[in-house]
């Protein structure tokens, strides 16, 4: 496989073309993924997610600059939405990443979501595997501008950063399920804007509800501890709240320190391996499902499936019954 050898040698054009093959899910790409798989598992995958306009791309730009100071090679996978009507897309994340141009230790790839709804494209995981095998030590994955339930990134990344900005919601937003729950690190970007204290307070309240902490406070000049019967759990990762200004890089070195602490934490308590295993199992399950479905459908005449669909549409049988009948006969 010349592709694979060239990619392992560090050929950037071969890497780029392989990324396309993988994204388009063509046989060449699949074979290359098989061949590259033994070389994967080394990179640190960092997910960056959050609502549109919170500054994800600018933050990724700054993070990459910061990581480059440590001589690590950085790949960036930036996902933007595809049009549900035409399938086309405008991928604009590079606009905020011009500081990274000209650095051969950085490789930026834009991806369209192509109909996936979880905040990533279907092939994003495979694309990160290619970068991993190609020797990129850190892979930054920027999701589409996410609402409340685009949480696929947490299954893919080792460290998930959720980016908020001042003025985006009250404390009820902060206790809802979904995107905030997946954060390993919470970032309040645009921290030079008014309202940053309110945002930080509601995020911290949310974290305290989720993770009991020791409440120590000053009372009449003495430090006192509020014993509300909740024992803080040892070894639990409590997501730090970090303020940044991604346009000028303020707070980014501190953010990188938090990221490094998170990696150390994952490695120390075994979560790194557990996440890795869960991710591989999810990938295996998905591929198994796809393979079984296509193998099964290949044995059934399309007219039979069509007939079933007709019966379902006429409300004569339910979809569940139809599936059952197909499987039994």
């Amino acid at each position, binding site marked *: 496989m010349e592709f694979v050898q060239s990619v392992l040698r560090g050929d*950037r*054009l071969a890497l*780029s*073309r392989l*990324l*396309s*093959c993988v994204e*388009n*899910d*063509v046989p*060449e*790409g699949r074979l290359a993924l098989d061949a590259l798989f033994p070389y994967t598992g080394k990179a640190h995958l960092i997910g960056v997610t959050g609502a549109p306009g919170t500054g994800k791309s600018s933050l990724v730009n700054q993070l990459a600059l910061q990581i480059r100071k440590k001589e690590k090679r950085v790949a960036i996978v930036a996902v933007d939405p*595809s*049009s549900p009507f*035409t*399938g*086309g*897309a*405008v*991928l*604009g994340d*590079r*606009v905020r990443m*011009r500081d990274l*141009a*000209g650095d051969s230790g950085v*490789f*930026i*790839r*834009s991806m*369209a979501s*192509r109909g996936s709804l979880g905040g990533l494209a279907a092939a994003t995981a495979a694309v990160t595997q290619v970068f991993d095998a190609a020797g990129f030590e850190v892979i930054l994955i920027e999701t589409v501008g996410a609402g409340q339930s685009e949480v696929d990134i947490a299954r893919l990344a080792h460290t998930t950063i959720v980016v908020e900005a001042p003025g985006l919601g009250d404390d009820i937003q902060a206790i809802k399920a979904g995107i905030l729950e997946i954060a390993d690190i919470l970032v309040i970007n645009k921290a030079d804007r008014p309202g940053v204290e309110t945002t930080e307070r509601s995020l911290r309240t949310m974290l305290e509800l989720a993770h009991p902490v020791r409440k120590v406070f000053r009372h009449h000049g003495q430090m006192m501890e509020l014993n509300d019967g909740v024992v803080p759990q040892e070894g639990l990762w409590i997501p730090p709240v970090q303020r940044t200004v991604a346009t000028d890089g303020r707070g980014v070195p501190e953010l990188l320190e938090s990221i490094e602490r998170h990696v150390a934490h994952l490695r120390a308590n075994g979560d790194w391996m557990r996440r890795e295993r869960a991710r591989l199992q999810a990938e295996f399950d998905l591929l198994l499902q796809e393979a079984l479905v296509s193998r099964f459908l290949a044995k059934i005449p399309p007219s039979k499936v069509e007939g079933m669909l007709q019966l379902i549409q006429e409300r004569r049988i339910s979809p569940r019954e139809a599936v059952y009948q197909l499987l039994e006969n």
Partner: protein
Amino acid sequence: MPERKIRVLVAKPGLDGHDRGAKVVARALRDAGMEVVYTGLRQTPEMIAEAALQEDVDVVGLSILSGAHMALVPRVLELLKANGQEHVRVFVGGIIPDEDVPRLKEMGVTGVYGPGAPTEQIIADIRAALPSVTV
């Protein structure tokens, strides 16, 4: 499900700061079902070639209003070639004097479009230039 989209890099080399035309074209190509990587203003030819390489695009669209096209376009073409991307089709839009159009095409530019060129024409020309898009 295998899917192959035409990938286009829309870039603005040089120093002029008007990217409305580039955005109109990017939007039109999106509506035609293409995946358009937009790079923003003030790109050097080196930045454009690097982005084209990383994004594995089929087409590079350059918007130039500054009059510097006879310097910028050959440089972009040269760098694409140096990177092994001579298969990438280059289109130029902007303020281009008539007498420069044949010279640009001689250099290897596939299409040149002035103000008011219908976006349908650009879309049709891109599709015609990539009859069998292969990965």
